[in-house]
């Protein structure tokens, strides 16, 4: 029942032991010690558990680990490069776009995916892209500002 599974997480190959149908979230958190993605609902309805698979923001709470294959998985901690925050992380910090911070992982991952696909999103596009990410503290206005700031910071990096 337990299988050896190869995963590529934050640029590193890992061999883990897990039953095929184990959701990716538990393998990341408990076998690989990754703490960015969080359990929120287990039903792909809140976005707290999001990771990037390739460049897609994907919920990890139901996705069987055996279905991921060797696609590149990037978690919140993997967005950092050489100890430097990713522009989206920096933007969230600069806007103080958080209260409890439990939803932050999904917000940042969703924003990173959005800006790769749509470097200059409209306000409506941003809201739609984040509608699957729930926040109970009401940090929405700051998060919206952070996405705009991330857009500017990412554009700077491109230049």
């Amino acid at each position, binding site marked *: 029942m337990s299988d050896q599974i190869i995963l590529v997480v934050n640029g590193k190959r890992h061999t883990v032991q897990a039953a095929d149908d184990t959701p990716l979230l*538990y393998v990341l958190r408990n076998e690989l010690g990754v703490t960015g993605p969080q359990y929120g609902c287990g039903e792909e309805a809140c976005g707290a558990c999001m990771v990037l698979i390739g460049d897609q923001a994907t919920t990890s709470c139901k996705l069987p680990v055996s279905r991921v294959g060797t696609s590149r998985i990037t978690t919140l901690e993997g967005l950092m490069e050489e100890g430097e925050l990713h522009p989206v992380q920096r933007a969230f910090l600069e806007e103080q776009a*958080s209260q409890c911070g439990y939803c932050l992982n999904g917000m940042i991952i969703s924003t990173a995916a959005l800006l790769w696909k749509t470097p200059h999103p409209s306000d409506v596009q941003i*809201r739609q892209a984040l509608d699957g990410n729930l926040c109970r503290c009401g940090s929405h206005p700051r998060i919206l500002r952070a996405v705009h700031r991330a857009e500017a910071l990412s554009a700077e990096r491109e230049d």
Partner: protein
Amino acid sequence: MAARKPDAWLDDWIAIGTDGMVTAFSGKVELGTGVRTALAQIVAEELDVPLERVRMVMGDTALTPDEGYTAGSMTISSSGTALRLAAAEARRAMLEMASERLDATLEELSVQEGAITVTHDPQRSLTYAELMGGKRFNLRVTDQAPLKPPETYQIVGTSVPREDLPRKVAGQPVFIHDVRVPEMLHARLVRPPSSGAKLMAMDESSVKDMPGLVKVVQRGDFIGVVAEREEQAIRAARQLHVQWQAHRVYPRMEDLYRALREQPTEDRVLVEQGNLEQAFAGATRQAHATYYQPYHAHASIGPSCAVADVQGDRVTVWSSTQGPYPLRGALAELLNFPADNVHLIHVEGAGCYGQNGSDDVAADAVILSQAVGRPVRVLWSRAEEFLWEPKSPAMAVELHGGLDSQGSVVAWEYQVWSPSHARRPRVANQLLTAQLLAGEPAPTPRFSYGAERNAPTNYAFPAQRVTVHYVPDSFLRVSSFRSLGGSKNTFANESFIDELAAAVGADPIEYRLRYLHDPRERAVLAAAAEKADWESRPSPRTSESALADGRGVAFARYENDQAIVACVAEVQVERDTGVVRVKRLVVAHDCGLIINPDGVRNQIEGNLIQSLSRALKEEVEFDETRITSVDWGTYPILTFSEVPAIEILLIDRPDQPALGAGEPATVITAPAVANAIFDATGIRLRQTAFTPERVREALSERGKTD
């Protein structure tokens, strides 16, 4: 400003390290509001040290003072005050030491960045670390040490960034959910399908060959499965065959408010002023209205989680509780251990806004760890959180007003029916775990509390009576939720005064100002009106367009003597669908001295959005045996597409005491929106949530009567 504990040992609050670091101890906990940063600002300011040299230790029963619960927007005013006095005492003590060692008078000394210097001879200087040499103060906080005048503040009053966010944006382990201890096992619970259901049979053989399963623990109606790995615990909990017998325990939803009001009640008259009966008899007009508000879920984004390690007669518990010491007492009682044998360490959870499942899950972890003799981590599922977390109670309010020939209020009678909002587990039997172990429902609380909050208004009506009818049976499990009865009472008060203003054709703000005499209160209402470009006219505007626009206002002084808040809401109602779009919320806010302006703004934004979500969308649903709001589909909350523009005006009062900002703005949103819907359409919604169905129904009712 009085000290909370004037005889407290200074060393319980402040320690100076040999490295120059200042450690400050607070019995309060960080609930995601940023108080860790704000408290550090207060300490750094009063001690004259750079902020980065202050380290806060919070909510650990082995290290910090007992400050009860972190609740009621009290952290800044209580723990902040205690720390301010302690820091001032420490500063005075070190100045006296320096005076002796530097052979200078106190007047000759100045303090900068944690060093005391002889002002006219800067070579003679000692740092706090050198003065203390790692020793304790061995002094008590006297309450007499001079406090820095607020006009000299350099750290307090500034928007320093939150100290926790760099870790959080980087995904570092900071939450209770991230706690891992050696030899730790994972557990999940198998709960009854509904409150009061009894265990009939459990077939342990249904899970006997499951990989990783360590133990099935069953005591009374409490069942937990413990496994080596988290996914194994989840699978075993799902596969375990259990039969329950459910009972009818709830009224039908349509009968709820009648069932609440039919109970024998414990009545308290909060305000009795003037001769009410005479005032009504002399009134030229009278009005009646009844308001209803449902149960609300805290609905934390992360379900409750805890880790416990029971070793013999000692236990270490990692918990996101709001009350480390009270929970310690309840757990000690549950285990029959001395309280000193329970070490409770607070770790941040997802935002809780009141009593969610954090206390209960700690008890679950304790029971399971004791059963297996190893540390156990328990995480509730999303559905468990919705089913078992204590809800904000449903409330019904009846209002009766009498007007004179000028249309002004001469008589005001307020009656509220509510269960107690206080069910916090100071004692074991308020813990869900204890109730399941014993197979007995929660006992009725020893005292009722919370429904009186903001039942009285700050309006100077000549004759008034305000009565709380405490209802013993809450049906659903209830406890504290942000502002307790404050938001539900304010919805009724601020809707009714709007109804009276409309009845006499008065502008809603002008009408409120007739009864407000406190200059600070008047200033807040006027500031909100100005910022919102309020156009003075009576409501409703009676436009018949398919998209009806309106604006509404609400005002309150939280707990009648705390922060003052006013909100102007601008809405658009789509007549065909009944959808209410809130376009803009403008708020004026006076919470006295502001410690961290950006932190206060963050709290106000959060209060507005969460309370708007409650007003527009939220209602815990149930049938006669069980709660049916069990996930984000059946208990939807506000999403990004529904979030309005928010504009906040902070009124800083550096000469006034600092008041909490964690709750006040939560009370004004629902009435401001209801009043704006009335302004737009002429329909008066006296029950939340303002769902499209309810709006359509009210519009069609109005169509019939017109």
